């Protein structure tokens, strides 16, 4: 599906946009640079574009704030675009007096070609263009921070929606609904006694489903609270650091401790990796384990499993009246046993067992290795504790010198640590699948989601038996399981492809930063060559990461979307600007960039040599009305004092 912006028009919109048209349908139109000084409605335009793409509902205040002047009663923003080469016109009609708004659509499919009320985009596109998704391709720097901030699930969600994996979730919802309908139909034709059983299991099933929904809500709330606390903790730690910095001597000691901490972190990472590698080779864990492995290898050798015994066993079994499980061996079962007998413990399995024997007999490794690594790890952890204590000491010295604000911040930080611990315990009780932990935490289907899932399944099977729909339920579970596996595997591979492509682009844009995306979970997790995880990232780095990610995400997707970006280079230094300016345009079939005059250097000027670029400049004239002019010459030479919008 191909979406292309052909232009837009404003009537009576703030920023002096009384009657301005931007037309992009005549060539050149692949890249458009729109120079808008602050105060001429750049942010407003971005908001309006997002609104008409997604059809989001504006609040009365948002509508009112869009008015050009206090006496303006109505306004309009109209977007023209083509979807698979068919023209669409979306209007956002604004009634400032009543603070209301309406969307209208004109499309070629409608015979009259006239306007109809509502946002009538093709269903597939309407599904895609949610408010959150629209912000990915009508993009501003603010999103750059969100994309890599813990707690935002936009990155992974965007991949699911853009690559239509969310539709597979809808398929599974449909399967569930069909099961429910089937059960309702069956229950309706049962006898009175059977109906009693159905009612009982149906009630129990509904109760457990309600409980599971409540547990999910509780989990979501706890996770939300956790993210808020983590975010606040980052702020508090930064504020504490700022208080320390106010004392020069303490600041120097703090910096020294931070350098030491970095070295400790690196050693910790290295020792942990080494420890994990040792754990994967049992013989390295302890001399006792090594001895037992060798002994087991010896015993297996003596056992000498005969190769043909399993085949003989199956042949004999097929001739019996009853199977070892007690069920009769009928003719079809007999055939199945004989046909499948070869599948069990054939020549290659014997080979594997022989290899196991050899490996066990010859198990040899440095059996002291893990002990050494564990000792080293303990020593590093001790250094880490001492470093933390020394850091605490700095804070205490400052508190003792009378810094009450720092004292309050320290208390808040300690409270946050305690609350985060409690929160983690609650989440663990709610979500753990480990039977040992479930027992230790007294988890039950009343308070643990995995156990509740098991209870849901049990009730569902009972209900299915009562309604005589067991077969259909099991079949639907089979379909759902396969669909979920397919969806999960596709997402995993897509995410990895996007991650690799993102890192390749990052290496081009910021080769000196040694910055890369280590994981795309809810958000983007970064790492640098020096550290296992990267948390302190500048605004410019954020923007570079966001560009690398978005271009990787959008360019190979089944949808061709325009990339509309506000101030694409304002927080980048000149060298990075040029790389961004060289790399990104090639990746999109249509790119619309709103720039201010200071972005011409390094970014806009990278386009001057390109063919197929459109330059538009908007400015406010003496009567405070915004005017638009096409052309490179005017774009290059334009100078106007930048005000605040």
């Amino acid at each position: 599906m191909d979406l292309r912006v052909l232009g837009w028009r404003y009537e009576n919109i703030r920023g002096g946009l009384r009657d301005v048209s931007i037309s992009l349908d005549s060539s050149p139109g692949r890249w458009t640079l729109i120079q808008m000084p602050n105060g001429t409605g750049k942010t407003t335009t971005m908001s309006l574009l997002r609104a008409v793409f997604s059809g989001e509902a504006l609040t009365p205040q948002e509508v009112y704030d869009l008015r050009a002047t206090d006496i303006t009663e109505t306004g309009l923003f109209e977007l023209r675009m083509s979807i698979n080469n068919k023209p669409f016109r979306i209007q956002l009609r604004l009634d400032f007096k009543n603070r209301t708004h309406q969307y209208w659509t004109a499309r070629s499919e409608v015979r009259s070609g006239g306007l109809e009320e509502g946002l009538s985009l093709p269903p597939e596109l309407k599904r895609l263009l949610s408010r959150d998704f629209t912000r990915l391709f009508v993009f501003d720097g603010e999103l750059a921070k969100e994309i890599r901030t813990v707690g935002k699930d936009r990155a992974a969600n965007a991949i699911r929606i853009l690559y239509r994996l969310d539709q597979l979730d809808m398929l599974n919802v449909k399967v569930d609904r069909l099961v429910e309908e089937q059960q309702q139909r069956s229950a309706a034709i049962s006898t009175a006694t059977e109906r009693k059983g159905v009612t009982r299991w149906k009630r129990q099933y509904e109760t457990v489903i309600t409980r599971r929904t409540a547990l999910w809500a509780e989990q979501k709330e706890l996770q939300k609270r956790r993210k808020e606390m983590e975010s606040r903790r980052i702020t508090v730690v930064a504020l504490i650091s700022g208080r320390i910095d106010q004392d020069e001597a303490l600041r120097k000691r703090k910096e020294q401790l931070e350098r030491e901490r970095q070295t400790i972190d690196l050693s910790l990472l290295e020792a942990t990796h080494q420890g994990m590698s040792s754990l994967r080779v049992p013989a390295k864990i302890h001399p006792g384990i090594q001895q037992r492995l060798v002994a087991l290898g010896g015993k297996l050798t003596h056992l000498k499993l005969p190769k043909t015994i399993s085949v003989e066993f199956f042949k004999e079994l097929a001739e019996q009246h009853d199977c070892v499980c007690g069920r009769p061996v009928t003719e079809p079962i007999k055939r199945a046993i004989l046909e499948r007998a070869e599948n069990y413990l054939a020549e290659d399995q014997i080979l594997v067992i022989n290899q196991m024997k050899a490996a066990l007999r010859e198990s040899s490794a440095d059996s002291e290795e893990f002990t050494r690594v564990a000792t080293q790890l303990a020593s590093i952890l001790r250094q880490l504790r001492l470093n933390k204590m020394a850091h605490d000491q700095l804070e205490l010295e400052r508190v003792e010198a009378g810094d009450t604000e720092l004292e309050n911040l320290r208390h808040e930080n300690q409270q946050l640590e305690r609350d985060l611990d409690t929160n983690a315990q609650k989440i663990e009780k709610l979500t753990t699948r480990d039977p040992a932990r479930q027992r230790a935490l007294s988890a039950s289907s009343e308070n643990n989601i995995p156990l509740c899932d098991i209870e849901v399944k049990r009730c569902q099977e009972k209900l299915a038996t009562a309604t005589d729909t067991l077969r259909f339920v099991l079949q639907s579970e089979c379909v759902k399981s396969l669909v979920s596996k397919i969806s999960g595997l596709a997402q995993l591979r897509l995410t990895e492809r996007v991650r690799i492509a993102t890192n390749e682009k990052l290496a081009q844009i910021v080769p000196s930063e040694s910055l890369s995306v280590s994981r795309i979970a809810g958000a983007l997790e970064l790492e640098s060559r020096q550290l296992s995880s990267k948390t302190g990232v500048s605004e410019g780095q954020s923007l570079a990461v966001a560009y690398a990610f978005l271009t990787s995400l959008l360019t190979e997707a089944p949808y061709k979307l325009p990339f509309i970006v506000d101030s694409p280079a304002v927080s980048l230094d000149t060298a990075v600007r040029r790389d961004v300016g060289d790399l990104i345009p090639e990746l999109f079939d249509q790119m619309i960039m709103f720039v201010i005059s200071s972005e011409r250097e390094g970014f806009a000027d990278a386009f001057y040599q390109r063919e197929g670029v459109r330059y538009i400049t908007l400015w406010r004239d003496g009567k405070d009305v915004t005017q638009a002019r096409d052309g490179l010459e005017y774009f290059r030479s334009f100078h106007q004092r930048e005000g605040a919008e």
Partner: protein
Amino acid sequence: MASPLYPELENAITEILSSANDQTREFRQRLRKLIENATLGNFTDDDVREVIELAVVDEEFED
């Protein structure tokens, strides 16, 4: 019309369905087609029901 499947989804379908060797060839083909159509939001209740009813299952379960 060209398949709406991109390589990652295509390969995931192939891989998962080929490991479902207890299922019939027809079930696997129909499920593949259903997923293909589902990614475009293009399927009916009957399409889904027919695929469900083709699945081979063992009706024994733990009480």
